[in-house]
C-alpha cells in the first residue's frame, strides 16, 4: 500500500500530499542532497535547512511540481514542523494538515491541540485527525501510519491502525480452463529474415 511518510534524514521525515510522483521524487532528491551535505560538513542536517532547500526548489518550478509537504523532525535546536507549498511558500506551525482531507483533519487539530502534550495523547490526536480525513474525504482511506520522532530516535509505526472497513471476498473468482468457449482458431507464422550480422570482440581482460 501507499507510504506517504518519506525518509529524509535519520531525524527528519516528510509527509507528502498532492501529485504522488512529485512528492516521492522531491523528497528523494532532498534526502540525497542532505546526506551529501552531512558528509561534507560533518554536521547533522537541520529542519530549517531542509525546508529552505524545498522552498528554493519548488519556487524555481513555479508550482509545476505539485508537492504539498509537511516536514517534521528533531535536531540540535529542538523539534520543528514546517509546511512547504507547491509555489514555494513556507510556514512553521505547532500542528499542520495538508491534502484533500486537510480541513476535516484541521477541525480536530484546532479543537484539541494543546502545547506540551504527552506523547500518547499526541498520537491519539493525530490518529483522530487522520480518521476525520478518511471519513469526510473520498480521496483518503485505508490505513493510518504514524511516525514519531524524538531526540532518542524514530518510531515508524506502519500501520498504526488498520482500516476498520475492510471487506472479505464474497466468492471464489478462479475460473476453470474452458469456461470461455473458443469459437475459432487461426495460426499465422511470422516470417523472420536475418538482415545483418556483425560480430564485435570484447576485451574482457
Amino acid at each position, binding site marked *: 500500500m501507499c507510504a506517504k511518510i518519506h525518509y529524509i534524514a535519520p531525524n527528519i521525515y516528510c509527509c507528502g500530499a498532492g501529485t504522488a510522483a512529485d512528492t516521492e521524487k522531491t523528497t528523494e532528491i532532498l534526502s540525497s542532497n542532505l546526506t551529501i551535505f552531512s558528509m561534507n560538513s560533518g554536521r547533522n542536517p537541520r529542519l530549517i535547512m531542509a525546508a529552505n532547500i524545498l522552498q528554493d526548489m*519548488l*519556487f524555481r518550478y513555479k508550482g509545476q511540481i505539485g508537492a504539498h509537504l509537511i516536514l517534521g523532525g528533531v535536531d540540535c535546536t529542538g523539534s520543528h514542523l514546517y509546511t512547504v*507549498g507547491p*509555489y514555494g511558500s513556507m*510556514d512553521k506551525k505547532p500542528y499542520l494538515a495538508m491534502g484533500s482531507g486537510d480541513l476535516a483533519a484541521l477541525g480536530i487539530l484546532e479543537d484539541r491541540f494543546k502545547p506540551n502534550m504527552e506523547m500518547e495523547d499526541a498520537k491519539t490526536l493525530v490518529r483522530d485527525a487522520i480518521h476525520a480525513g478518511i471519513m469526510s474525504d473520498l480521496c483518503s482511506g485505508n490505513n493510518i501510519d504514524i511516525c514519531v520522532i524524538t531526540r532518542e530516535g524514530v518510531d515508524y509505526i506502519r500501520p498504526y491502525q488498520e482500516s476498520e472497513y475492510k471487506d472479505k471476498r464474497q466468492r471464489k473468482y478462479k475460473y476453470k480452463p474452458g469456461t470461455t468457449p473458443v469459437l475459432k482458431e487461426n495460426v499465422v507464422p511470422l516470417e523472420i529474415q536475418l538482415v545483418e550480422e556483425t560480430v564485435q570482440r570484447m576485451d574482457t581482460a
Partner: protein
Amino acid sequence: MDRYFDQSIKGVSTGTTILAVKFNGGVIIGSDSRASMGGSYVSSKTINKLIQVHDRIFCCIAGSLADAQAVTKMAKFQLSFHSIQMESPPLVKAAASVMKELCYSNKDELQAGFITAGWDRKKGPQVYTVSLGGMLLSQPFTIGGSGSTYIYGYVDSKYKPDMSREECLQFATNAIALAMGRDNVSGGVVHLVVITEDGAEHVVIPGDKLPKFHDE
C-alpha cells in the same frame, strides 16, 4: 486543492494590511497576520509578514507568499554580502534598492509588493515603498496591501510628522485594526516592530486587545 483557486494569485497569498510610519527617532513597521487562499480560506492565522533583512532594516510583504519569501531571502543574502564588502551596516535606501531591482527585473513572473523601513546612521529613520512593478518611493509614512484601501482617509487625516513613540504606536495599531475590521483577507493579530538607533523591538497585539470602533 483546486476548489480554492479562482484568485489571480496562485497558491497562498497575503491579502493583507501593511504600513510603516516615521516618528521622532525611529520608524514603526506593522502588519496583520492572515494568509489566505482564493479569498475564502484562511490558510494561516499567524503568518509573519515582517521580515528582518538586516539588523535595523525590516520589510513587510504583500501579495503572493511564495514570491515574497523568495525575494526577501534573496535580498537578505545580497544585503548581508553588501555589508560585508562595505564593512558597515547597509543604508535603508540600499535595502529598498535591492528589493526594487529584484521586483523590476522579474516583474513578469513576480506578484509581490513590499514596504522597506529602518534606521541607518546617514539619514536616520526612513520608509520606502516598492510596488508590484518595481517603483521605488520614499515617504514619511506609507500603507499597502488590500486592506490599505479602507484606511487612506484615516491615515491621511490622523498622521502628524514628528510624533512620539507612543502616539505613533497608537496610530499604527488603530490603522491596522480599522483595516482588519473591513477587509476580509486581513486579520489575526497585529505585529509591530519599532526600529530605532538602539535596535528593533517586536510588539504583538492579540485580537482581543485591539482597539474597538463601534463594533457591536
